[in-house]
């Protein structure tokens, strides 16, 4: 169950011609999930900054 299914790095990339489909799906998936985290963190940072500025001015 824990044996590597491929013999070398090229086989991992190529996956018998299916590598383009498999790796593009995971690349897009990982990018979208990471981007969502970054956007959420950025929004929290932004709104906190606005509230702090408002607090300081009042």
């Amino acid at each position, binding site marked *: 169950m824990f044996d590597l299914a491929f013999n070398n790095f090229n086989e991992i990339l190529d996956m018998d011609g299916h590598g383009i489909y*498999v790796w593009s*799906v995971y690349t*897009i998936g990982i990018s979208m999930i990471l981007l969502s985290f970054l956007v*959420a963190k950025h*929004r*929290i940072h932004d709104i906190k900054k606005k*509230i702090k500025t408002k607090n300081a001015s009042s």
Partner: protein
Amino acid sequence: MLTLGWIWGLLFAPQDAVQGNSYRIIFLHVPSVIFAELIYFFMAICALMHLVWRVKLAAYLIKAAAPIGAMITFLGLLSGSIWGIPTWGTWWQWDARITSTLILFIMYLGILTLHGSFSNKEKADRLMSILVVIGVINIPIIKKSVDWWSTLHQPASITVSGGSSIDPSMLYPLLISIIGLGFTLISLGILSSRSYIFTREKNKKWIQDSV
């Protein structure tokens, strides 16, 4: 946990006898579509709480969950389309499962658009909740579409009752990927909810004190 599931599935799970290595998309596709439906179901429960008991937080949670639901549904559709090219010979087919999932994606976008189009946010929360409750009818349709209609999409390989037609060497990484994506989306949901609560309640003293 998600990384573990994906590495196991991508590198250590054996090749499928029929689909070859293209089946490895399953470790992203199946968790994505499971959570696309579960997030909507969660939103429907929140919508009922908002409409019946006027729980303000429930509406905030819907608004925070909708973009995550849209993102994960899009990912499910996209991964399915890419998987369809080597498996079915086409990236799109207007069959019941795929079309009902596309409707789910449009529902998510509709909910976000509807909420964004009102300046009165209380009214927007109420209308958004009504739309979410109406749209929940699509969830059992997606689930049962492969049984009710003759579709290109295969029937469910794993069922809630515990049955599975997948070999354990492929099933375990799939289950780990599902649990891993669940934790990832919960973390994202917490961040997104926090950001939306800050946005909506920014004039309240408790928020100003907490920053």
